């Protein structure tokens, strides 16, 4: 087999390279990145997209070229050239994917580590002390030694996460809503508010079936698993309002299980805290009850319409 090595091939190679490099940066397929880790994930994707575009163009090019160039002439009943192998060529095309995936694997590892995915302390399953066995005979903790890191922990490269104590938020998924509890203030809400540039640590749990807590703009997702607590630690760097999506099939209204994340300035966040803290609420007429004392069903009622939960579903919630 002769590898065509003329000028045209060279030009095609240059063109493929340039197009791939350009498209890898300008595909526009990802939503805004709201944290520095998200930007790193995007860089990884951009690299993969560049390589994929090059391979895509190369192989589709070969197919299209062959389909036009190597057509059988009418009436030609002879066979094509009988080359059956070419060891050097085969070694090359085994080595190229091998090198590519090696690079991708190492790079992915680096990024996953930078995201805090391998953080041995903070992302470990905290075991029975935290895992809620509070509801008798419902949930049981696994992994009592807390050896496993389930989720994404503190980033070794994020100065904020190294320096500041994270804001803890307990996130509970239930059919079909997310409930956020702030242990520091006792606030319980149906949407999440966090200050920018302060690390946030989510303790994610599920009340009924599997759910998955997904923040598309943060490129973060972690399943909420009944009987276990999973973690996500991240620092929002961009103010704004972002969707929170449930990404694990959890029943008929799975598609309606959505909420909002508000990344606020410290002042706005503190104001929100003030307005919503339970102590505050006790003094006002409107909210006579401490949300923490409500059952999920009662608590959810005001949010039901917004979250697309039917009255029937609401009744089913204890």
């Amino acid at each position, binding site marked *: *087999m002769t590898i065509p090595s003329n000028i045209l091939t060279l030009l095609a190679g240059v063109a493929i390279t340039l197009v791939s490099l350009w498209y890898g940066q300008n595909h526009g*397929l*990802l*939503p805004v990145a709201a944290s520095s880790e998200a930007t790193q*994930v995007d860089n*990884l*994707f951009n690299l*993969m*997209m560049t390589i*994929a575009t090059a*391979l*895509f163009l190369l*192989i589709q090019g*070969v*197919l299209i070229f*062959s389909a036009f160039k*190597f*057509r*059988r*002439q009418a009436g030609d009943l*002879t066979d*094509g050239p*009988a*080359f*059956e192998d*070419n060891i050097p*060529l*085969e070694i090359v095309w085994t080595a*190229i*994917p091998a090198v*590519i*995936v090696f690079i*991708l*694997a190492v790079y992915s590892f680096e990024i*996953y580590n930078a995201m805090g*995915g*391998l953080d041995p302390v903070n992302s470990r399953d905290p075991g029975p002390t935290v895992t809620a066995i509070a509801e008798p005979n419902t*949930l*049981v903790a*696994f992994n009592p030694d807390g050896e*496993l890191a*389930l989720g*994404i922990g503190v980033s070794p490269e994020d100065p904020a996460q190294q320096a500041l104590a994270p804001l803890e938020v307990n996130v509970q998924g239930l059919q079909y809503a997310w409930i956020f509890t702030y242990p520091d203030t006792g606030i319980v809400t149906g949407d999440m508010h966090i200050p920018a540039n302060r690390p946030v640590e989510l303790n994610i749990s599920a009340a009924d*079936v*599997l759910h998955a807590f997904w923040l*598309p703009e943060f*490129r*973060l*997702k972690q*399943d909420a*698993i*009944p009987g276990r607590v999973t973690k996500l630690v991240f620092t929002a760097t961009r103010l704004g309002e972002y969707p929170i*999506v449930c*990404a694990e*099939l*959890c*029943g*008929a209204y799975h*598609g*309606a299980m959505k909420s909002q994340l508000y990344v606020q300035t410290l002042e706005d966040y503190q104001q929100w805290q003030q307005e919503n803290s339970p102590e505050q609420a006790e003094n006002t007429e409107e909210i006579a009850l401490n949300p923490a004392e409500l059952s999920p069903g009662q608590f959810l009622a005001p949010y039901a319409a917004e979250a697309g939960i039917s009255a029937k579903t609401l009744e089913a919630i204890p």
Partner: protein
Amino acid sequence: MTATESPTSPAAVSGRDLGQSQRKWQDYFSFNTDHKVIGIQYLVTSFFFFFIGGALANVIRTELATPDPDFIQPELYNQIFTLHGTVMIFLWIIPAGAAFGNYLIPLMVGAEDMAFPRLNAVAFWMIPVGGTLLLSSFLVGAPQAGWTSYPPLSLTASQTGQMFWILSVLILGTSSILGSINFITTILKMRIPEMGIHDMPLFCWSMLAASVLILLATPVLAAGLILLSFDLLLGTNFFNPAGGGDPIIYQHIFWFYSHPAVYIMILPFFGVISEVLPVHSRKPIFGYRAIAYSSFAISFLGLIVWAHHMFTSGTPGWLRMFFMATTMIIAVPTGVKVFSWCATIWGGKIELNSSMLFGLGFISSFLIGGLTGVMVAAVPFDIHVHDTYFVVAHLHYVLFGGSVLGLFAGFYHWFPKITGRMFNEPLGRLHFALTFIGLNLAFMPMHELGMMGMNRRIALYDPQFQPLNVLSTIGSYIMAVSMVPL
């Protein structure tokens, strides 16, 4: 009666020599042990279920043409995608692979029939039984937990239907195990003496690799499903967290089978393509040994990558890294195959008939599925796109763009041999053109949808995603129309 004849009895031998035209149509509805009859039975049955699965897909796409759940109720939506996935996997692709295996392997290795003809017939007849059971679950409330049937949801939603699902998958899995025993034995033990293992057609290699996977992985699924049925029926708590069970163990068991299952679904069609391309390029296959061995490399690696479906689940960081590495390595033997196919057509004398068009279409779209496969293997990116439409796009490029296009390439390639008749070539090309356009229109936009934030398995979605969804729905209608020329 054919059923009672031993395969070596004179009647059976002469029966085997019957041309297609001399066969009675009743043979195809009886417990016949002739591998050709069984092959055709498999093929016709799987096509029947393909139309059902395709109809379900178009219901899904119709619902998704608008953001609101207005066409069907969300419960029904979940039932429909659950059955769509299950039908397409267990009643279309897997039996269709067995169809080619049954028809071709004895002919290719020079055996009179499969090694265990009666077992073979049993294996086939389990398919209609399992299929009927699965579809009849619509009468009792079909399962709603997806083809993955993760507990605890699968323990609470549509319990009777879920039980139907488990039974049916157990039956279909058993059928597939019996089939694989037959393939392995026939390929290894019944070749004519002159045919060494390296003289075998590549299709035999790929069926061997797929059968080994079936044999190793399917029993594990069976075990998991039996435990799940205990939880469902007897109130045990293997996987039910409410009683101390662990739903994550189910996921491990399930994917220990179901990742290999994707290779069970694609390997036979790798084999088909390796037969089809050389013929219509009028050139020998390039890199016979590389293609043969890479099938086994894929089989072996396929057994140690399952947790890549659980990167956002209850898996610790080191485990995610381990499975990322093993998964990425699969790109190497897969790449070898793709390059070898390209080299096979390169410089040939290509005849762009229906079979070859599907063959080229296979490489083209399987390539896309393979490239996105490496992307989702990268943990940091998969965390973002897991359980989104990106994955739906990826899996359809592999299963539809790969397996189904490969299947059609083989279908047109062997149609004259199987039926003794020629098909209508222009209609075949039209079929290809519509399928290929529809496929890309339906599944390409799903990549972007998933990355932008659309999760899968939802009957209602954010209105911002509507334009791309409409495009995708049009693509799926085009695919529906493409079935008309077929």
